[in-house]
């Protein structure tokens, strides 16, 4: 059993039953968090770095942006008994097109925003798979806490 987390959305799961999966991460980033003691897992699929680009949309759907979505992901996990010092963070996505100048660098900006937010909150990234030109799917297995990553056209591997 796995719960599908949509684009600009977030999912939280507890116990051994339900895993979380999110598809088609292009320049978007998937943030998977897991507390092995509380058995709480969360997965966020955000599209853009900063909510100031469209505050109205951020109010309607905070999961669209890194700066509004990431704090909510952690808060929601805390509600289920997770604690910050136990949470393991793994991230994937932030792909780019073949772009010399950086006009279309949303992937990189998404990653920078993530780094900034986690760094400010003293949270480390345990594993990451960022950039490149690939479309990714990531899956959080609640039984083991393992995160699996799949490039479109290839097989699944552990992150």
């Amino acid at each position, binding site marked *: 059993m796995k719960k599908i987390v949509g684009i600009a959305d977030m999912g939280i799961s507890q116990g051994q039953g339900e895993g979380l999966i999110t598809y088609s991460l*292009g320049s*978007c980033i998937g943030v998977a968090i897991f507390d092995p003691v509380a058995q709480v897992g969360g997965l966020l699929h955000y599209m853009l770095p900063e909510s100031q680009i*469209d505050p109205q949309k951020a109010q309607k759907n905070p999961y669209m942006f890194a700066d509004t979505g990431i704090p909510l992901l952690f808060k929601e996990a805390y509600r289920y008994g997770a604690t910050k010092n136990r949470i393991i963070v793994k991230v994937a996505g932030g792909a780019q097109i073949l772009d010399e100048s950086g006009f279309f660098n949303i992937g990189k900006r998404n990653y920078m925003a993530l780094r900034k937010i986690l760094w400010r909150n003293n949270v480390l990234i345990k594993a990451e798979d960022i950039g490149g030109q690939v479309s990714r799917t990531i899956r959080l297995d609640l039984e083991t806490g393992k995160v699996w990553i799949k490039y479109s056209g290839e097989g699944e591997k552990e992150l």
Partner: protein
Amino acid sequence: MNLVDTIIQSAHQLPPFPAVIQRALALINDPKSSVSTVVETIQYDQVITANVLRVCNSPYYGLRQSVSSLQEAVIIIGFDPLLEIVLGSVAGSALGEAIPGYDLESGDLWRHSISSALLSQMISQRINRGQDHMVFTAALIHDIGKVMLNTYVKDQFLTIKDLVNTKKISFLTAEKEVLGIDHAELSATIAEQWNFPREITQAIRYHHTPLLAPADKEVVYLIYLSNLIAMLTGIGGGADGLSYAGYDEVMYHFKLEEKDIEKFIAQLGDQIQKVETLIQLQKPVENS
């Protein structure tokens, strides 16, 4: 017969693009159209008619008596939902299928196509171009060639991917190098066969290589950008991923900035539900 000829031959065997949909799109997008002209066009299409009535009689509209006249239903729901229903009916054809060569599951290419079409309207509005059914249609069918190229890409996938990785070229260039034809070229060939106007076939042909277009730059650039932003979001993305080139010239041409790209993405993110609703429409009408 060489491979390119075989591929083009198979494209010629595609069923025609329903003329009723092409006409309906033009009419619905024209603010001067009357309800009755639109109804006259769509009434002979059973799927569209059934879907319009189904939507109109859904709980959303809260009608006390069920509506059975198409004319009445169109008046009640209005042109915007009608446009979506008409488009939803196209999805029953090629764009809705799974395309394993590009690792696209059933519905994925349709998601990407609708996203591109919606983006084309957002960009048009931003650059004060106004709604344009030609642009919308071009954005919707720009990747139709992938459906035909599917088997060949699947057979040669490792060779293509290897070229992309080692030579750092785009997926499109690698397709051309390995197969002798790329999906943009093939899409344009199909659109030509469907008798789409030159502006559309051009925009489709150059949707990854806009700077090479000899004419109609405006529409070519629009489709290029719509597709590029749809790719960035990853919606309906496949094995070719984001292995395509970015051209700043297009952004300069429209006087757009980085911020605008982010705004378009946010706008699309807001409409994902709409995209999913359209995907659902392609499912057959149930007699419940």
